């Protein structure tokens, strides 16, 4: 009876301690939100074109600070996250509306196209055949495993004719697989 009472008291005290600790942690996190929001804005403005980066950085930081001082700290964080969306839209717009003035930009685009083509070529010439071969081999191996397993489950004893038929099929499949693998090795 005393032990149960002590346990109950300990549980209550533990609950109180955990509640206080969680409160302290939540307060600490809440006080760090403006700092986090400012960091997000600073990171976000790095996505912007250099000519408008500084201006928007100052403007957006002011907005985040204003919201944070109005005790809308969580809203300041949401606002900072929205800046990321703005920055990506503005960057895209700046890229889309910028004329091809210099050879270096054209070269950059050509390099981008080249890299994209190389990646597509790599995937079609090497990755796709390799994955197809791998999946086909795995499928065949699984089929052979199933057939093998089926043979060993005593089906042979009851249906000797069927089992021998399956056994011969299995052997044929194995030899075909061996030949295919040898040919592939010879080709590569």
């Amino acid at each position, binding site marked *: 009876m005393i032990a149960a009472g002590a346990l109950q008291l300990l549980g209550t005290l533990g609950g109180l301690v955990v509640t206080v600790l969680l409160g302290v942690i939540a307060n600490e996190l809440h006080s760090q939100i403006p700092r986090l929001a400012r960091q997000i804005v600073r990171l976000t403005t790095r996505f912007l074109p250099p000519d408008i980066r500084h*201006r928007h950085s*100052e*403007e*957006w930081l*002011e907005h985040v600070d204003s919201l944070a001082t109005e005790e809308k700290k969580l809203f300041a964080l949401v606002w900072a996250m929205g*800046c*990321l969306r*703005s920055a990506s839209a503005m960057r895209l717009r700046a890229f889309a509306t910028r004329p091809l003035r210099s050879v270096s930009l054209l070269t950059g685009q050509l390099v981008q196209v080249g890299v994209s083509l190389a990646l597509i070529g790599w995937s079609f010439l090497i990755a796709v055949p390799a994955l197809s071969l791998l999946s086909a081999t795995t499928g065949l191996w699984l089929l052979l495993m199933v057939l093998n397993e089926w043979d060993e489950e005593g089906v042979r004893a009851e249906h000797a004719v069927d089992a021998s038929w399956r056994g011969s099929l299995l052997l044929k499949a194995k030899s075909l697989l061996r030949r295919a693998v040898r040919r592939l090795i010879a080709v590569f």
Partner: protein
Amino acid sequence: MGGTPRMTTASKLVLSALADSAPDESYGLDIAKATGLRSGSLYPILQRFEERGWVESRWEELDESAAGRRRRRYYSLTGLGVTVVHELDNAQAWFGELGPTLS
């Protein structure tokens, strides 16, 4: 920058907010509060309008260390922007009159 920018509901809200606050200038959060727009939509719209010459902006003249806050960027409609707002209002009124006739 030729052509006309997309005139979405959000764009119209921003123009209306700037027109309503004229001749005073508004900064980003003011416009956001007036329109209900979030940062993800508001800034690209303001940027588009500035590029089109409908809106102009300037930095607040403020001693940041004395005021204890950063300076703000204030936006206001240009003459062209005011014309666009009037044209939009006229178009809206015309469609409003046309609405009952069509229905």
